């Protein structure tokens, strides 16, 4: 009897391992564990055995039943997985086809650069202010210590609306407008469009500037240098060196042209830097006391610095754009690169 049980068990194991479908597995299960299954029937007839044989025989029967259940479960798991594999193989598609979406547009590179610059100064605690693009001669020139009939007016070719109204030639008038309304401490950047009556291969009549200024009781030229160094490192990388050269702007004294080490050749000399290793990026200086006077500040109390830069110029250096006229052309293929 025991022998018979053992042979049923080994037969069941063989049959289970050789089934290839879930359906076949169900019939194997019925054959052994179903209502009239080989194991079920023997469990049922257990009572007819002599009492002294029951425990041993019963134990073995139970073992075999558990073993078969275990094998069935295992095989079922295996067959289900194989089934899913087969189905998935049939459903594969070409993942190299392009995805569907409305492609994002692009910010104009000047806007992109302007945002970057504003963020740097805002992170240093500067506020952002704006002013009109059509400006009084007073704010654009006179309050910045550039009187009528002064040769410094030749530094900027000006579009005139009337004798007293101009298209602003720089963002510096915002300096005066802010100082008229607010007292120090002040740290402000003023971005915006400016206009010059000038158009050739290297000039466009409208471009963007960003003006920055800081006024308090003890601001030094060293502070100006420190702040501009942060700017240069953020925009052009920490290896960038800056250089101050004496220059002249009527609204700052001392005044400086600020150069950075050439971003193309790292200072070794190339076409962009005319082999000097340096490129001019902005003008700056300590705010002229006459400007404070014009704004109505108490004489001698405050010092401050100011700087102004052409955004397109910075953008050209940063991205290696060689023709400034591209900024106003708005060719899709240009815009899409930024």
């Amino acid at each position, binding site marked *: 009897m025991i022998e018979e049980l053992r042979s049923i068990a080994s037969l069941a194991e063989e049959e289970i391992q050789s089934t290839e479908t879930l359906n076949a597995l169900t019939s194997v299960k019925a054959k052994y564990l179903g209502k009239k299954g080989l194991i079920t029937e023997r469990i049922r007839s257990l009572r007819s055995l002599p009492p002294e044989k029951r425990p041993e025989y019963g134990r073995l029967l139970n073992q075999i039943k558990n073993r078969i259940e275990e094998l069935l479960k295992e095989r079922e798991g295996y067959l289900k997985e194989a089934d899913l594999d087969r189905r998935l193989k049939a459903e594969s598609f070409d993942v190299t086809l392009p995805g569907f979406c409305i492609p994002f547009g692009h910010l104009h590179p000047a806007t992109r650069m302007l945002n970057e610059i504003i963020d740097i100064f805002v992170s240093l605690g500067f506020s952002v202010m704006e002013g009109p693009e059509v400006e009084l001669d007073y704010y654009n020139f006179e309050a910045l210590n550039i009187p009528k009939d002064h*040769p410094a007016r030749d530094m900027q070719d000006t579009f005139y609306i009337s004798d007293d109204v101009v298209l602003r030639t720089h963002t510096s008038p915002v300096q005066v407008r802010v100082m008229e309304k607010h007292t120090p401490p002040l740290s402000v950047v003023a971005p915006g469009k400016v206009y010059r009556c000038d158009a050739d291969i290297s000039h466009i009549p409208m471009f963007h500037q960003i003006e920055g200024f*800081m006024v308090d009781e003890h601001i030094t030229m060293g502070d100006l240098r420190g*702040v501009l160094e942060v700017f240069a490192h953020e925009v052009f990388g920490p290896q960038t060196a800056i*250089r101050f050269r004496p220059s002249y702007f009527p609204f700052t004294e001392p005044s400086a042209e600020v150069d950075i080490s050439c971003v193309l050749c790292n200072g070794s000399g190339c076409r962009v830097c005319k082999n000097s290793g340096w490129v001019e990026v902005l003008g700056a200086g300590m705010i002229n006391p006459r400007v404070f006077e014009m704004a109505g500040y108490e004489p001698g109390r405050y010092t401050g610095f100011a700087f102004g830069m052409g955004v397109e110029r910075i953008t050209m250096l940063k991205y290696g754009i060689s023709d400034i006229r591209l900024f106003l052309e708005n*060719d899709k293929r240009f815009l899409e690169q930024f």
Partner: protein
Amino acid sequence: MKVSIEWLQEFVDFKLSPQELSHLLTMAGLEVEASETVDGDTILDVSITPNRADCLSVLGIAREISANLGVPIRQPLISVKEDETTSPDIEIIDTEICHRYASRIIYGVRVGQSPEWLVRRLEAHGMRAVNNVVDVTNYVMLEMGHPLHAFDLNRLEGRRIVVKRAGDVGRFKTLDGEERRLNRDMLMIWDAVRPVAIAGVMGGLDSEVTPSTTDVLLESAYFDPVSVRRTSKALGLTTEASYRFERGTDIEMIVRALDRATALIKELAGGRVTALTDNYPIPYTPPEVSVSLQRIRGLLGIEIDESSIVEILKRLNLQYKKEGEGFVITPPSFRRDIQQDVDVIEEVARLYGYEKIPSTMPAIRLKRIEGNDNFRTIRLIKDAMVKAGFSEVINTSFLNPSALDELNIPDNDRRRRLVHIKNPLRREESCLRTTLVPSLLNNAVLNQNRGERAFSLFELSRVFFDRAEALPDEVMQMAAIHCRPLRPSIWEKAHNGFYDIKGAIEGLFDFLKIKGYSFQRSDKPPQPYLNPVRSCAIVINGEVVGSVGELHPSVVSLYELRGDISIFEINDLEALIRAIPSRITYRQLPRFPYVERDISILVNKDVPVAEIEGVISSLNSEIIESVRLFDIYTGKQIPPEKKSIAFTIRYRSSDRTLTDDEVDELHSKIIDTLRHTINAELRG
């Protein structure tokens, strides 16, 4: 300003290569922009800022080199032997604009060609040789920075000079042969009866030195910078002389320059020299500028000691007196730019070396300035447009006024209130934009001409309206253009581009949390350049803020555009920004389930979907959560004047689970209402 290194070396000793000298000058604030080698000499092109008139000469640049290197300067040797005791007859009438006039006469000169060395120097510095007398005046101007003029004495009526304004003269022929129209205030040099030169700008044709001249009257004078500049600007005539006079010449150098020229003329052309006439009615008084040590150190952020400052002052010829904890400075007459303490501080910094100023970070008290946060919102708006697939363009603010006619803008429209530029670069750019649309159309033309067929562009810029104030009204606007081919590729959905651009607006408004907006049609098209039956106004809280539509076919063909082109405009972006809620208020998530019912109806083709939605929302039921359109159909199985519209209504209550009866009752009420109001027939 061109300057020869060889010439510089006549006045100052230095052993620098041309590159080293260029670097020294550049770092001193005299930027060397170019250099060229001529006959073994190097000519530098130095950019001189308007404040440094003292450097518009070889001597001036030599002075800078001397100050920077700390080596002495050699002044030119000047000695004039007078042959006659008479002196020129000079009268200054308008003394407030001619502070000094010095003169000598040289009798019996032989006018001829200059020697080669002189011709070469003039030419290397960008000047043309004329004759030995004129060339000497130019040579001395280049060397010493003071412009001189030579008259043919025998062509001066009464052999005298009078300095006074033009008054009624009217016209005057300058030595370049041009007839100039004078205004009353221009300062002129006269003889006894008529003007013979425009003071400080250009001499007259009738009194110039020619080969037949035998007697020369030399002029060395100081003319007021503003007066010379006004004259030069009014005449549109800038000369080497006017350029120097308007920046300020050295009034104390006048006689030395005159004598230098006199001696050279005598050397090259012979002649007998008269005594000097030096009319100097308004003598120069140098300013006194006080500057404290603390202010120098405090402004520059450097620890510089007193003796270093003194050394710098000496090198620059700035006379100083110690006074308390600082100095009183008297600048030399050639440094008219030094007027305030900061001017002295700049000089100290220049010679100390800008590069030696250490970088520090400012210790500033933080302060927030109220007023301008729009730039943040504008950045959000631009970013949202970019995410909707639009690329940003930036155009110049100029407008060709004829563009308004091309867009059929009516005469009384606000956009006709143009701001005109007095000196435009081109007639096509003579006004400021009152609308962004023409720029976008031009961008579309450019891109189509370069072979691009599909693109979406937007611009966010200010436009300018003239008004009864000094400054125009500057209004921030946004406009976008969307262009796609008429026949989209098969994988693109066949719909009008209008819906793309409208979707972008809806997306933008939802992103900005703007509620209460709608797109409204009326009998009058929202813009004359839009297709009248495919356009509408954009309305927020009852206020028209813009328009959207397909471009009018006549504008499409006028601009020679192709494809399906739609445009939207927001006329006042700040009004739009004001409609953005100042804060977001959280609403409880719904706790009860919704019930959805579909409706499919037939209505007349001309009934807009918005009207159906309006009818449903007019029922004002609290439990209608949303109405969502999912199909529109015209064609087979439907009468030709009808369309079929299907939508899903979602019902939900905030305080209970809805029963089927409740929903059914409302749903049939909706159907009844649609039947009565817009003649809807229920389908299927």
